[in-house]
């Protein structure tokens, strides 16, 4: 579904974050991009989400170069949930969810609200509908952020370090919730949290210094890297 072909990204200060990187991201429920801090995971995510443009190489979404896709269409196909979630603090959960469908996909307010209600119900967080982001817990906020992304019915959604703000128990709950989530959307989880990746994903890649060094089943990758990795 997403083909990353030989991309390189070098920051203004000369740091080579991605070096001739190629990955094929299959259409799978959950796919993990693992690696330590500084391995280039976040740069890769920013390239996929069109926040950074690789100096060389191409990224294809369903065989189409992502830079040829119109902005609104692209955003509707590929969602992002940021490490800090960035929920809109001045809006309640309902409005956080309905803003993009109304403004980007031209839904009627009424229809968008109905869809949002159903989405929250499906995700098991319907009780949060009138709450403001400042009033809910970290785990709940994580789900709301995913719900907000799913409202646009994207083909794929990037999750950046989804467990960074969660404690062990919540991480466990979140992993279970995510694995059981019934959705047509593929999740690409970018994380340094290997145990979490093991819990939710079957396939993945492992990155080191801007390159992919391991690829395949998560269990195999984890076996390979167990030694040197410290979490």
């Amino acid at each position, binding site marked *: 579904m997403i083909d990353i072909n030989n991309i390189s990204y070098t920051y203004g200060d000369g740091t080579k974050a991605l070096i001739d990187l190629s990955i094929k991201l299959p259409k799978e429920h959950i796919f993990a991009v693992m690696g330590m801090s500084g391995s280039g995971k976040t740069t890769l995510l920013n390239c996929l989400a069109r926040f950074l443009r690789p100096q060389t190489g191409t990224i294809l979404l369903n065989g189409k170069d992502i830079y040829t896709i119109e902005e609104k269409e692209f*955003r509707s196909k590929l969602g992002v949930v940021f490490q800090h979630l960035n929920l809109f603090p001045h809006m309640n959960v309902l409005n956080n969810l309905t803003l993009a469908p109304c403004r980007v996909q031209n839904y009627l307010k009424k229809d968008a609200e109905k869809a949002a209600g159903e989405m929250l119900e499906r995700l098991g967080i319907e009780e949060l509908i009138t709450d403001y*982001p400042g009033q809910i817990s970290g785990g709940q906020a994580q789900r709301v952020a995913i719900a907000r992304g799913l409202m646009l019915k994207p083909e794929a959604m990037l999750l950046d370090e989804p467990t960074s703000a969660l404690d062990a128990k919540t991480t466990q709950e979140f992993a279970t919730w995510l694995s059981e989530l019934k959705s047509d959307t593929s999740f690409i989880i970018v994380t340094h949290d290997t145990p979490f990746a093991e819990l939710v994903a079957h396939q993945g890649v492992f990155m080191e210094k801007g390159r992919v060094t391991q690829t395949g089943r998560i269990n195999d990758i984890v076996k390979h890297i167990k030694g040197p990795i410290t979490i």
Partner: protein
Amino acid sequence: MIFKDKQREVTEKITSDVSRLNRLDGKSCRLVPFSRMTKSLLNKILWIIGFFFCVCNSVWCEDTKTFTTALTGKYPPFSYYDSGGKLTGFDVDIAQEIASRLNLKSKIATTEWDGILAGLLVEKYDAIIGSMAITPERTEKVDFSNPYYFSGAQLFIHRNNPHKVYSINECTDLRIGVVLGETYQQYLEMNYPDINVVTFKSSVEIFEMLEQNRITGFVTDKLVGAWQIKKAKRPFVPVGEMLYKERIAIPVRKENTRLLSDINHALAEMEKDGTIKEIYSRYFGLDSTNKNASSKMPTSVIVKKLLKGFGVTLLVAFASILIGFTLSIPTGLLLAHKGGKLLLPHMITRAVVDLIRGIPVLIQLLFVWLGLGLRPFPAAIITLGVCAMGYMSEAVRSGLMSVDLGQGIAAKALGLSLIDRFRFIIWPQAFRIAIPSLMNCVVALIKDTALISIISIPELIREAQSIISVTFEPQKYYLIAALLFFAVTFPLMKLAGMLEKSISKKGFEND
């Protein structure tokens, strides 16, 4: 000058008084002793003693002699010849009254106005009681007594007051008559540019126009108008204070300090026992020695004026706040964005905002009004609006800069357009953070509207001043004005405080 020089040589006051005595009344001083001398040697000795007594006791001599004063005789009703050819008038009566209170015989000399001071200096007379105003130039040459009446430019209106005018301040766009070429015309045009000044060839024409209510009023010398009211029974009343005052007093030669104090003493007594008022009422229809205006401002008019002024204050404040706030959004954005393509607009905005914030509002106001020649209302609203923009754009800038960058990125990731990102995500958050500072700007701006009274806008302060100019109650009306201001600013300040609290309580923390 010869006389003056001679006097300087004389060291004793006595000597000067002798020479004056001789001049004042030769007969009584010189001839009487001579007739005695011829009678006997004893008398001769007595005469010598008497002469020295006379010389030594100058006051005694003066008290029994005449008090010569000068006037023109051509300045009705102050001095003129009546139908019987008798010199009469206000100044004449004052002169006679003073003489009698000094126990002197009054003698009045008539002379031309242009030589009247010179005549005093060469001792042709003791004093001038001829409606002479105190001026710095004259004070250099002579000493003036305390004023015995006040005159000056005065606004007169029809007794029925159809335009509800209580001072010159309410005459904006109304027709006010003056005699062509009189100083009042220039004075009005300089100081009250909004008045519709209408010129006439003579004061008679003006009086007729006002009687027919074809003009709102006229400005002339207060006493000239007052005499018209009395003599021709015109239905006019003076309103408000005199536009400017002249103090009319009695000049004497500088060395005549004794005479000066005697005159002042007499004037004080005449003022006290009502003599001046009484003489005044013989010639004039109103009292110029009384400082209070003759027409009283009704309470309903005062309330209306205060409310109207307050309305103007609020209107100007509201318009300026609206302009300032609207402009502060783009300028605040430009201030918040330092680099990239917007560097030049950013620098220009920065410079403009710094200028606005660094220069007193009053100077900006005067510059726009007089420098750029705008009419008062546009000048006030534009200046205060631009000032508000200066201060508010800083509040907007800090609001925008305190919104987390991730908010914009997350909105972009959802596919929101640039305008939508600003409208739904960035601005609502920035605005809420900026509200307390914006409120402070609003309060400051409302207070700054007090400045526009300077450029003749009839807002609250100016209306209060115009009421005070009639009622003479500054404590009361400034206090009312202060309370009206406070009634608006206090709730706004409280509201700002509450909003600040509620924003910090709710918080913007994310996850």
